[in-house]
């Protein structure tokens, strides 16, 4: 007995560790993405998201004002300004050439060629003096090591949603996803009830055929289906993609729901029949409320699948502003803005926010025991 207990606890630990491992594996990148999506573009390029709460030190090269804007101050010509412009920061060191960018401490006076001097204060104010009048429009380079405080911004989201067209794609994706989730559930629930509880010839064959359809890869049907859609005039329309997703989702939906509905206690259905309910009333008043866990789990499946789908959308929808879905838009962004992490992180987060929301609102229905109290032991 000790042995068995020991093995079992070891197994429990293994399970716990595996679960924790997977949770961490999944959560950390998501969290990183979330943090990154709020960070400033410059900070993303210099430090990882895990350093987002500490100030980042970076070497910057800025150019002073145009030298011709110098003003005469006594004997000297002076050029003044701040290296941080609109932003704020703290200078740790500065230099006058690229060989020694950290040669001077803030406040020190650096000698430069042609009798010029430069001094940079901690707050970024610089002052360049020269005995001769300075000319030219190219600013003098200032090398500085600066510390910038953490900076979080909603700019990325604003930019992604309103200027990169993600918002429009977001709406387009909803336009595809909601009907493409609701329609198959409606059809499948009716079919599942009939296949589980109504007697008719050929029922078993029909169930077998549906199970068979589960293994048909949808890629096989794309071209014939598109040709059909084109020939009846719904080739590149929302109606077409709704029907396509419905068709591709139905076998799994019917299979899942039929198994669940067939497992409902026979007595409840017979009791309703004796109580005078018609098949439709049994379906609506007994089966549907009791099948909510199965409906919810299929809804989650179908919603996530349609939301993340790129292939079907590429085939059945056009590339126009009115029809481009999130996945398609992200693919385009990857091409045109592959280096702009802050844009990609924000768009990615916009695209996973909805599936997360759907999952967390629906999952509580999955764990609730809906049949409690109906039959003995239920």
């Amino acid at each position, binding site marked *: 007995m000790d042995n068995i207990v020991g093995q079992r606890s070891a197994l429990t630990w293994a399970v716990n560790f595996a679960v924790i491992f997977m949770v961490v594996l999944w959560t950390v990148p998501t969290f990183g993405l979330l943090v990154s999506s709020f960070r400033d573009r410059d900070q993303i390029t210099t430090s990882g998201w895990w350093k987002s709460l500490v100030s980042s030190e970076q070497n910057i090269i800025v150019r002073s004002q145009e030298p011709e804007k110098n003003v005469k101050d006594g004997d000297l010509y002076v050029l003044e300004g701040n290296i941080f412009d609109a932003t704020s920061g703290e200078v740790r060191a500065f230099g006058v050439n690229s060989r020694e960018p950290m040669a001077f401490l803030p406040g020190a006076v650096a000698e430069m060629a042609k009798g010029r001097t430069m001094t940079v204060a901690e707050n970024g104010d610089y002052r360049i003096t020269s005995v001769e009048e300075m000319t030219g429009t190219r600013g003098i380079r200032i090398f500085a090591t600066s510390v910038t405080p953490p900076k979080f911004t909603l700019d990325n989201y604003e930019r992604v949603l309103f200027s990169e067209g993600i918002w429009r794609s977001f709406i387009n994706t909803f336009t595809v996803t909601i009907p493409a989730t609701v329609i198959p559930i409606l059809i499948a629930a009716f079919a599942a009830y009939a296949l589980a509880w109504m007697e008719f010839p050929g029922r078993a064959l029909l169930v077998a055929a549906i199970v068979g359809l589960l293994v048909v890869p949808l890629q096989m049907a794309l071209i014939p289906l598109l040709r059909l859609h084109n020939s009846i005039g719904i080739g590149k329309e929302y109606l077409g993609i709704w029907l396509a997703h419905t068709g591709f989702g139905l076998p799994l939906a019917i299979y899942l729901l039929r198994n669940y509905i067939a497992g409902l206690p026979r007595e409840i259905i017979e009791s309703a029949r004796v109580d005078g309910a018609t098949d439709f009333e049994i379906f609506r008043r007994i089966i549907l409320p009791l099948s909510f866990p199965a409906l919810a789990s299929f809804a989650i499946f179908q919603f996530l699948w349609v939301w993340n789908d790129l292939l079907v959308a590429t085939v059945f929808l056009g590339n126009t502003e009115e029809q481009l879905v999130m996945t398609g838009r992200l693919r385009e962004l990857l091409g045109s803005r592959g280096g702009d992490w802050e844009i990609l992180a924000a768009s990615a987060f916009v695209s996973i926010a909805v599936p997360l929301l759907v999952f967390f609102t629906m999952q509580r229905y999955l764990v609730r025991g809906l049949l409690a109290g109906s039959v003995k032991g*239920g």
Partner: protein
Amino acid sequence: MANVTIDNVVKRYGSVQVMHGVNVDIEDGEFVVLVGPSGCGKSTLLRMLAGLEEISAGAISIGDRVVNDIPPKERDIAMVFQSYALYPHKTVADNIGFPLKMAKRPKAEIDEKVDKAAAVLDLTPYLARYPKELSGGQRQRVAMGRAIVRDPQVFLFDEPLSNLDAKLRVTMRVEIKELHQRLGTTIVYVTHDQIEAMTMADKIVVMRDGRVEQIGSPLDLYDNPNNVFVAGFIGSPSMNFVHGMVGMKDGQKRFVSDGGTVLPLPETDAQEGQQVIYGIRPEHITVGDGGVPMNVVVVEPTGSETQIFAKSSGDLIDALVKDRIFARPGSEIGFVIDPVNVHLFDRKTEERI
């Protein structure tokens, strides 16, 4: 209320015949119990009455209407299931009112009838609860409430008490019988428990393997069982059966068992030498002088009565006596049998002689 006629009903599943021409007449207002071991077809018969199973041949009439092809909802029956079959997502009130709602009755009428049914069954405080918040006995009462609220012609009960514990079962038994006396509606009740059958029924139908073995009042079945099966099924503890033949001793017919035990016989048509089964109920044996000498095997005192298992020449017979007997195993005891209480069955057909 209505009478029910089951006329030569046959049920086949494919090529397997499970019901072999069953005939039962049920009078208006009668409490009829279908009883038998599991697999005897009693539940199937009830489900055919309800319309949940189709009939392969024969006819079932409720009132004077043949209902063979009429769906359950038009048969004007109400059924109480073994597992209660409550609707888990509806409150007690909605559960009870469901049949009326399906019949599209006005809301006020539904409320009134639900309140009335709840009052009858002491369910008024629980009307707003869900089935999962009720105890087993309360759930059973909700199921009954759902049946009585419709005021049907016939109530069908499918082993309604077998999920309850022993004590609650006795209480519910009394409640159901009381309910029947109050409503006076015809009830068909299925059980495998012969005590339930004996205590509740006006008429018992004993079934075995898809056939009716005997129909009669509880006492009729107890006193005059048609065959060995009914004799053994009805009565607790069950009847003693001893295999043997009719012999002669002192000019009188006597029963001689295969082992050689000699037991008294009543007036009978059985011929000398005929192979018979001898049946005597344990409670019809008394202990005293001049009885059949037996060797005590086990004594089981229960306080009010004592059950004695005793052996003679390999034949084991038990007796149930009111007296307190203190007999040691192995000691000799006399079993006095009144021939009036003896049942004789043919050994081959197992039918009553």
